[in-house]
């Protein structure tokens, strides 16, 4: 899902195991928001051109995405997702 904070935009994911992860929101290829794409296993797919990222590491996994996404630690506290934005 999309999360906007302090003029920045992020994408938050919940893995099949229930862990939470957070990456930059925009695809590193053409700046399309990843929240509109598909999440399969540990891959986040850009809805425009199918650039793929491992949301746990931010690593680009499929062209046209070549550059990794920044990742941010995320956890659940008191029923809320907390993201450590740097």
């Amino acid at each position, binding site marked *: 899902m999309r999360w906007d904070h302090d003029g920045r935009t992020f994408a938050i994911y919940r893995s099949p195991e229930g862990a939470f992860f957070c990456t930059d929101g925009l695809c590193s290829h053409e700046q399309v928001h990843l929240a509109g794409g*598909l999440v*399969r296993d540990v891959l986040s797919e850009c*809805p*425009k051109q*199918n650039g793929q990222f491992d949301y746990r590491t931010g690593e680009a996994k499929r*062209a046209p995405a*070549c550059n990794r996404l920044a990742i941010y630690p995320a956890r659940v506290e008191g029923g809320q997702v907390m993201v450590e934005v740097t």
Partner: protein
Amino acid sequence: MALSEARLVPARDYSLTGRSAKAAIESGLSAAEWYHTDVSRKEMKELMQRLDGPAIRDTILWLMLHVVFAAGGIWFWGSWIAVPFWLAYGVLYGSACDSRWHECGHGTAFRTRWMNDFVYHIASFQVLRNPVNWRWSHARHHTDTIIVGRDAEIVWMHPVKMALKALAFTGMIDSWASLKVLARNAMGQLSDDEKDYIPQSEQPKAVLWARVHMGIHALTAVVTLWMLATGMGWKAAIPFLLIGGPRVYGCWHMVMTGLLQHGGLAEDVLDHRLNSRTVYMNAVTRWLYWNMNYHVEHHMFPMVPYHALPQLHAAIRHDLPEPNPSIWHAYREVWQAVLRQRHEKGYYLKRELPPGAQPYRLELHEAVPERTHA
């Protein structure tokens, strides 16, 4: 100069490194946010789901038909009965390759990645496209669809040369041009446009794959020459009819469907309803074309697999112009619009939206000076 030529609109700069590129970037048309019809997240997730089944079924059928028609063409060689076999083989190879290249390039045909890549490489070879160059040019085509100076895949360049468009159905000019690009890439050379849309890290792969493709074509030529030299006469044409040749004699279906995608429509807009066309087509054509007749839908939501496009069409058609009811109808529309575009600067076919549809997004259209009517 003939009078009719004197009245043609001035030629635009379609290169990716010239003044149109600069204008597109400065005006905000490049990498911009496009109009999308509202579709709930839940429905879109369902539509985007990947499946292996439909593409495995279609690919097995596609490959089997290659074998059947090629075998028939060879078996009946020397008889007129062979002709329809070769014509059918030609379309499967020289036309259906385009949709397989396209859908597997998007990575949406199959759920399994290696299957997409495998068919992508076969189809790229058949359609005479460098698999690296075209992966990147097509990504750009979706980022900046028909944005002049940014989109590397604009087919209708103004003023449109009608004779060249007619010749496209023969495949000769396009195939020769594609072969020259592959040969140039194989020699390690990339054009300025190619360098613009292919990241530097990917460029060596473009050279490698061009060499692989050219190697196979060279081998085909050697076999043909060997057959000629050993007195096999007209049978020496068989390797060429099997490999490479279908891109010429079988491409007409690809051209027929492809020209309708954007013909007569707008340049430099951020609303796919203005620059793309959906046409209702018969079942055989849709199978060969893998449903790319739903072209507005595909551009608006490129991650929806080909097999789900009819459902996507049903979900958003209330917000789109009425599709052309047939290929013939669409060609009549394109023909009239393109004839006008040749002489009327800035003209494009603006189709009526159904009642209740969101209005067209036009605010950046006039930002490009060359689009204005003045």
